[in-house]
């Protein structure tokens, strides 16, 4: 069905939910699954805090490199 829909052989890279990849494989679709999740489970507050840490650390590392 998928093949007909796209008009050519479909190859899929699946990010996140593994069962999507399993279903595609069952239909004979060549699929690569990547276990990806949004950072901090999508929690915006935690993402913002992690960004502060990352920014601080890139400055620390740059300062080290400049020395």
């Amino acid at each position, binding site marked *: 069905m998928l093949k007909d829909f796209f008009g050519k052989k479909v190859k899929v890279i699946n990010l996140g939910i593994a069962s999507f990849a399993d279903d595609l494989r069952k239909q004979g679709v060549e699929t690569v699954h990547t276990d990806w999740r949004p*950072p901090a489970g999508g929690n915006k507050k935690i993402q913002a805090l992690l960004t502060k840490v990352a920014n601080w650390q890139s400055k620390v590392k740059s300062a080290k490199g400049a020395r």
Partner: protein
Amino acid sequence: MHIDIQQANATAVNAIQAAQPVLKGIGTAIDVVPGMKKNLILHAGPPITWEKMSGPLRGAVIGALIYEGLAKTPEEAEKMAATDKIEYSPWHEHDGVGPMAGVGTASMPVRILENQTNGRKTFCTLNEGLGKVLRYGAFSEEVITRLKWMETVLAPVLKAAIPLAPQINLKNMIAQALQMGDEVHNRNKAATSLLIRELAPAIVKTDFPTADKAKVLEFMHSNDHFFLNLSMPAAKMMLQAAEWIEGSTIVTTMCRNGTEFGIRVAGLKDRWFTGPAQIVKGLLFPGFSEEDCNPDIGDSAITETCGIGGFSMAAAPAIVKFVGGTVNDAMNFTRKMYEITDGESQAFQIPNMEFRGSPLGINLLKVCEKNILPQINTGIAHKNAGVGQVGAGLVNPPMKCFEDALEAYVEKYCKDE
């Protein structure tokens, strides 16, 4: 502040790896535990007041007051426990750990461990066995009688035997036990056997009556968890080495008091970050249901913090018969923990993962970023005081602890970024 987190964390993990916990002896809490007082009750988990204590912790406090002779009846003990005559403090703030309710008082015998790397000590009471025991909140006459026997026979025999035995390096013993199917949190069968093998000849050499020596050996033999109260202070000692390393995001404490789960982080010194203790999912003893279960309790999550326990379940496939799940689950729990840790233990290896070192050094940043919580296996206490253990299972900490710790870390180190 010019702190490289990666370097700070490497320093913390190296300090944990370098610790060498050995069994030094047995002492009485009032004599050896820092800050111990006659009216002080040490407990598992983060700080808590009597009003907020859950059933099993209250039960253990009641039992401890009777054991100490401070109260004659449970009713008297309960009244006294609510007054300012009795003080409470976490074991973790006194260089110790306590399994389940973890209650420790002045007269109780404690094991003394010493870190050969830096001379620091940690402490833990002796394990009473499973079922109706103080650490699960039971306080009946049989519980108090057993505690008194432990004080007057078990502890003196072990105290005399330990100097006669070869030095017991607990890190080596845990490493061996992992090769033999233990993860030394809820499976301590091999480790207890190894301990008996070292101590038995020395026990026989002591001058105590044969009947006492035989009973001590029988008690150790009948209790597969006898080693737990050594794996815990050994893990505490290894993590103690990393307890204050500026800038480090390595988690140094995970523990529960039956009401709240608490963590501490190397770069945030002694600050506690807490969230509600979760309900443990697992296998219950016949006659009990989930409604009977108290939320997660005990300092034993110090094993997971140190890369053993739930983090090393792949080494102990038989444990699923006690805590639930499948062998495949046990393998996957360990695999997943590598995603939130910075190192791999040099000492603790997992045979059926090609002797890979166990996942060591929980990184607060990785827990928050990947949204993966540490995996803990644990005993389950009845929610009411005086009942005891009702099962064992699997549990995670609440994410709130880690989120609050991250917020405090940013506030301390990089709020202006």
